[in-house]
């Protein structure tokens, strides 16, 4: 019985995340529209809310074409890896109110980092198996970018782990009852958030796609729902990044009056919108700028943050 319940619970969460990610595509277009003095999609349903449904129908009925020159099994596996790794990472997010699946996992944060590393494979394999120039270039960019930024993402969150004394995300949230980690770990948050954008290859760090120069980067050759999986995976990644930022630095579900789940949702929405705003506002850097920014600025910053945190903790004798 409990197994069935756990399964249904997981399925419900899965559907919720996927639907949310899909819904986010509409939100993004609408909000981007307003920021660019346009209206955005407003024709399908009330204020265009059914645009998602229309897009879904369309993308399912598109010709699902695999290029003859592609490496077929890998080509099919790549989007599955991307979507699955992102969705699995949601298992450890402590939404609060018992909505989470294994929010109390003792290696929760490591699990998240592991899943993020896994999604690199999806992107790289997509680029490689397409066997076209643009795809391969996109895949190689993705590999370099994601592995570079993953390094200091891990280092940045160590500060939080040290302060909370656990990899368990629920415990990390619990450790923020008095003060959100954004205050002591401000620079750590900065490094984490920027690395997160790069990991999700969202604008302004969408160089693996880079449509101006690479067509559509690693997913140039993808069509129909296989492309859809990359698409949903990217938006699920945005939600994941937002949720994790909230859990690690903004006190998770902590807040007055409302139950934790509401607070968690509100705080996450803020980050989602902020990520969209970054897309509207910032230009894409050059690839060498991206790399030097990561290795020469963010990496020392994260190391410094770690050292200072450790030093302060020793000084305070914790």
């Amino acid at each position, binding site marked *: 019985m409990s197994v069935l319940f756990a399964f249904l619970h997981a399925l419900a969460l899965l559907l919720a995340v996927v639907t949310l990610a899909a819904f986010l595509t509409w939100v993004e277009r609408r*909000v981007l*529209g*307003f*920021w*660019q*003095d*346009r*209206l955005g999609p407003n024709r399908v349903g009330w204020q265009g809310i059914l645009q998602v449904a229309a897009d879904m129908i369309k993308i399912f009925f598109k010709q699902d074409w695999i290029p003859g020159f592609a490496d077929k099994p890998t080509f099919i596996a790549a989007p599955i890896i991307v979507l699955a790794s992102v969705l699995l990472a949601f298992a450890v997010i402590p939404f609060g109110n018992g909505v989470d699946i294994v929010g109390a996992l003792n290696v929760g944060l490591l699990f998240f980092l592991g899943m993020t590393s896994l999604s690199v494979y999806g992107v790289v394999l997509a680029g490689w198996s397409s066997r076209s120039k643009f795809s391969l270039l996109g895949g190689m960019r993705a590999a370099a970018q994601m592995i570079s930024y993953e390094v200091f993402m891990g280092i940045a969150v160590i500060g939080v782990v040290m302060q909370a004394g656990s990899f368990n995300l629920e415990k990390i949230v619990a450790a923020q009852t008095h003060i959100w980690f954004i205050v002591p770990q401000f620079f750590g948050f*900065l490094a984490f958030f920027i690395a997160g954008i790069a990991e999700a290859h969202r604008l302004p760090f969408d160089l693996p796609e880079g449509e101006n120069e690479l067509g559509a980067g690693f997913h140039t050759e993808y069509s129909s729902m296989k492309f859809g999986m990359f698409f949903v995976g990217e938006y699920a990644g945005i939600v994941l990044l937002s949720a994790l930022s909230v859990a690690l630095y903004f006190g998770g579900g902590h807040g007055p009056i409302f139950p934790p789940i509401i607070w968690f949702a509100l705080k996450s929405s803020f980050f989602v919108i*902020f990520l969209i*705003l*970054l897309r*509207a*506002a*910032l230009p894409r850097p050059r690839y060498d700028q991206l790399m030097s*920014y990561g290795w020469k600025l963010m990496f020392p910053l994260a190391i410094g943050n770690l050292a200072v945190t450790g030093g302060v903790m020793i000084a305070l004798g914790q």
Partner: protein
Amino acid sequence: MYVLTSLRSAWLTFKHLFHRTETVQYPEQMPYLAPRTRGRIVLTRDPDGHERCVSCYLCSAVCPCDCISLQRTSAPNQWQPEFFRINFSRCIFCGLCEEACPTSAIQLIPDFEMSEYNRQNLVYEKENLLIAGTGKVPEYNYYRVAGIDAFGKHKGEGPAERPPVDPRGLMP
């Protein structure tokens, strides 16, 4: 530094949420089209009611998508198109034909609602293109200023012409 300028850009962008949108909700709301809007192409007539087109082929030459085709009639000394065809399914409404036209015959008008279910219906012949009036250029009559005989204007009858020379005359 990067962070601050990025945040400033983000803030400036965010403020646009409260600006008025530029989008016009066509077709419920019709946009204003200036008289010089480049829409559907028409062939006009001169003030005397003759076809203005002299089939000089300049419009077809300048057309970047090669969607204008015509043939001058075989009648001697008559410069009119035997057929004049525009394939609007190829036209990009760039207006270069209007600019090239030396007689103001070809003009673009503010009508862009030309959708068809059958692409073949977008092929317009001279009969479909000709209008009764002079369009945007009311006065110009090319044949009055050209040097050839046409439409009852004989040599020397134009406003800027002297009567024909008598080659056998002895006056210098």
